[in-house]
Structures are given as C-alpha cells and as structure tokens.
C-alpha cells in the first residue's frame, strides 16, 4: 500500500503531526476511514505531484 498525505484538521495531534500540519502515512483502509469520519484528518492535496 502506498503512503498517502494527510492534513490534521481536528483538535488533537495525529501520527505525530500537530493540528494544521500535514503528514505522510500508510494507514489501513479502516483507520483512514475512522480518522476521516471523526474529523481528525483529511486527505491533503499533493502539490508536488501535480506539477
């Protein structure tokens, strides 16, 4: 599974990243879904890959 980039959008740090920061992680589908559903993280737009 490839790493994805996420942004912490909730009130608490996630995977060592503070609120507002981005991080890369290889989350399982279940963990990604639960963290997005709880409002902890959101998928981040990867500017580097778009260029």
């Amino acid at each position, binding site marked *: 599974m490839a790493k994805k980039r996420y942004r*912490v*959008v*909730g*009130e*608490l*740090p*996630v*995977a*060592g990243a503070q609120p507002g920061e981005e991080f890369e*992680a290889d*989350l399982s589908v*279940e*963990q990604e879904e*639960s*963290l997005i*559903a*709880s*409002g*902890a*993280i959101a998928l981040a737009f990867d500017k580097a890959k778009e260029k």
Partner: protein
Amino acid sequence: MAIFNGRDYSVVYNAVDISNRVRTIRVSQNAEDLDGTAMGALSRAHVPGLRDDRIELELFQDHAAGSVDATFSAQIGVAAGVLTTIKPTSAAVSATNPKYEGTMVLLDYSPADVEVGNLSMVPITLVPAPGSQITRSTV
C-alpha cells in the same frame, strides 16, 4: 529515570494523541488466579491462568472534530480494536521510557456522565482484541 511525577504521560489511541485530554490512566497487566490446591496441601497453589489486561482512562470530554467524543464513539464494540500506546513521558521510547501497547477494543464509553456544575468527564475501558495482550517495549 528515577522516581517521577506523572505529569507528562503520553496516550495515543488510533494514532490520535489524546494526552492533553487525559486525567487518569491505569494500565493493568493481569493473569487470572486459578486455584490448583489439592488435598494434602499446606498452602494455596496459585496457578496463573489466562491474561486479562485492560487500560482504564478518565478523559475530559471534548466534542470538537477529531477529539475525544469523535475518536471514541465510532469504536465502541469494534472487535478488531485499534492500536493504543501509553508512555510515562512524551519523549521517544527508550529503556527508561517504555511503551505499553496493545490493539485495544473499547468496551465502555459514556459520552455524557456529569453532575451539574462539574466538568464533563468520560471514563473509558479498553481491553485487548481477542487473543492479544498489552506488551511492554523499550524500542
């Protein structure tokens, strides 16, 4: 690390660092106490049985996105559990800052349990996913 004041414990549940919402922590690593005493014995024979670990937390309730309520409410009774890690301090894991870790299932969650005028606290009980236990690691 010598004796210390427990003021910087780190609690990470499903990758969410809930440390600054935690008031109390109890990590219990237990084996059931089976009675193997037979006739002729002069003292009780305690036989270690199955492990029965648990983590009990008391948290300050917080309904903000990605905080206490949102993090825990979705995990009640999910048998697969989620990784939970507790360390004596927020520093990196080391020989003097061991981590206690397990894939934990949320058994008890009371989103509202408050008396007028008091802080809204949340008691949490976590048990290991079937067939697992809490482990100690220094790396």
